[in-house]
């Protein structure tokens, strides 16, 4: 009995300990950095935290992703802010603290990997272990090379191995130093998705036992859904959205996110009626008489709003459909049809121009041609509302 109680107590303590552990390892950052290049000023102004595990940093190129990583690694010094990992302060402008790059223990895998071309794979991996005794050093590098499946390449030079192998070596070289934060700047961008997912599995496996925050930069939206527990969306130097990939990308509250997430149709609209009992409202698209039924949000009747609709969420019908659950049936005319790979992008004018994606087979069975009359079918919840 006493043993049971004791055991329960230990497990509770372990649990509490684990929670403390998570906080102890989490990254907290507040960074202000002004970059002036040829007349135009760019300001990075971001505040966020990242718990152990993968956090995606998503944004278009030029959004400030790499600058942000450089500040975290210490390669670039912010004008103001504070960066800490748990209790350990790496940078604090108000306290005048700025730990040197080589003492931060922040792992950084660059976009172009930056493997040392004159050193062998093994020497590359051992590079960050100079403070470790020789036998332990080779032991650790061998274990790491094995867990990233590149042990057989240890005497090769980086120029003599494939792209995927180089990525593995670069990861191994960084992880072998036991960093307390890992920064990945699109290191897997050039790889096919199969190779990529295998490498990521190995990375996840490694992090199960190490539990450090990993910031993964990408501008590829498929990667966002495949990877992240948490997404931070960076646009023009600011974090404009954060949450799970589903929350952030599928229901964007911000136009920049909508554009990044690939919402092809974004319209200005006016709220014309709110139906609080039904949880919907009616919006009129600017410059047309199109009335859309959308989900209810907190917005006054008469206020301006933006509506985003994914081109893949719109159905087309060649005749007026009946007996449908979808609330928005809008007549229109096909303006143009463009084939992109295996998708047909149809531009339909219904007062405004909407992009609709359909398959080749759908185009053929509907006999779609420019000038055809069609009906657009849009579900209420396919209309995503954003503040102007």
């Amino acid at each position, binding site marked *: 009995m006493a043993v049971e109680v004791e055991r329960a107590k230990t497990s509770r303590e372990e649990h509490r300990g684990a929670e403390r552990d998570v906080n102890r390892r989490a990254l907290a950052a507040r960074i202000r950095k002004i970059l002036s290049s040829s007349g135009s000023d760019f300001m990075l102004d971001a505040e966020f935290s990242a718990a152990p595990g993968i956090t995606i940093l998503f944004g278009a190129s030029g959004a400030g992703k790499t600058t942000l990583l450089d500040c975290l*690694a*210490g*390669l670039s010094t912010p004008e103001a802010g504070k960066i800490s990992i748990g209790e350990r302060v790496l940078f604090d402008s108000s306290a005048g603290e700025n730990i*040197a*790059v*080589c*003492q*931060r*223990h*922040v*792992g*950084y895998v*660059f976009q*172009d990997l*930056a*493997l*040392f*071309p*004159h050193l062998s794979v093994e020497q590359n991996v051992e*590079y*960050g272990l*100079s*403070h470790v005794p020789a036998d332990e050093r080779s032991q650790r590098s061998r274990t790491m090379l094995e867990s990233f499946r590149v042990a057989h390449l240890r005497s090769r*030079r*980086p*120029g003599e191995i494939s792209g995927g192998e180089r990525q593995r070596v670069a990861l191994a*070289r*960084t992880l072998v*130093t036991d960093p307390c934060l890992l920064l990945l700047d699109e290191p897997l961008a050039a790889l096919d998705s199969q190779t990529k997912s295998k490498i990521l599995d190995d990375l996840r496996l490694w992090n199960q036992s190490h539990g450090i925050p990993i910031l993964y930069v990408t501008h590829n939206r498929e990667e966002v859904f495949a990877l992240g527990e948490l997404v931070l969306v960076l646009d023009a130097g600011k974090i404009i959205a954060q949450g799970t990939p589903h929350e952030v990308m599928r229901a964007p509250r911000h136009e920049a996110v909508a554009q990044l997430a690939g919402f092809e149709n974004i319209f200005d609209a006016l709220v014309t009626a709110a139906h609080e009992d039904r949880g919907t409202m009616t919006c009129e698209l600017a410059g047309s008489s199109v009335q859309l039924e959308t989900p209810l949000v907190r917005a006054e009747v008469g206020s301006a709003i933006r509506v985003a609709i994914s081109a893949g969420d719109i159905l087309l019908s060649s005749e007026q459909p009946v007996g449908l659950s979808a609330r928005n049936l809008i007549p229109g005319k096909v303006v143009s049809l463009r084939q992109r790979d295996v998708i047909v992008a149809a531009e339909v004018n219904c007062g405004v121009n909407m992009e609709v994606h359909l398959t080749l087979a759908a185009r053929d069975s509907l006999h779609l041609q420019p000038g055809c009359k069609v009906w657009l079918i849009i579900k209420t919840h396919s209309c995503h509302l954003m503040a102007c």
Partner: protein
Amino acid sequence: MDWQAFWLTIRLAVLVAAVLVAIGVPIAYWITYSRWRWKFLAEAVVALPIVIPPTVLGFYVLVALGPRSPLGRWWESLTGHTLAFTFEGLVIGSILYSLPFAVQPFAASFSSVDTKLIAASATLGASRVRTFFRVILPLSISGLVTGVALSFAHTMGEFGVVLMVGGNIPGVTRTVSIDIYDQVQVSNYAAANQTALVLVLIAFLVLSVVYALNRRIWATWPWK
């Protein structure tokens, strides 16, 4: 052929090349990575010996080494003799004269090292010194070889500075090029030709080694 002058010249050139590695590498490192706004002035000073006449350089070195300058007096109090017209004085003059031929190839090769590699080294915990010896220097071998060979060959053939600073003392400051000049003065064209040919051959040999080595380096590191 005056073998005494020949070996003296070789000794001078080797010594100068060695000293230039020791002082040229830090200067080149500083020129490459410093963010000092007046850096260009230092670069101009380093390059000066390329454009000013050797006699001008030699004249100022002579004045600076002479018993009336602080440096000359300090040396005299230390050693009991002046620097002018000695082998040591020749070494100092030659170092200044060949400085750009070492520093410029060094700096060019340092700046061609990808800054991402330097950043990667730092994030892996390496200090600046370690980064320099493990990453920058090994990737700059070709520039180092070029700088050493050029300063060696340049010192081998110098004339104006040597004459101004060292004079023409056999076994002390009489170098090969001065020997050639002397031979021509006394119309001994055969001897002058012989010595001149040796100088041309040495210069050709050194440059061939430089180019061959550089090619080997490119060939074994094809991804660079």
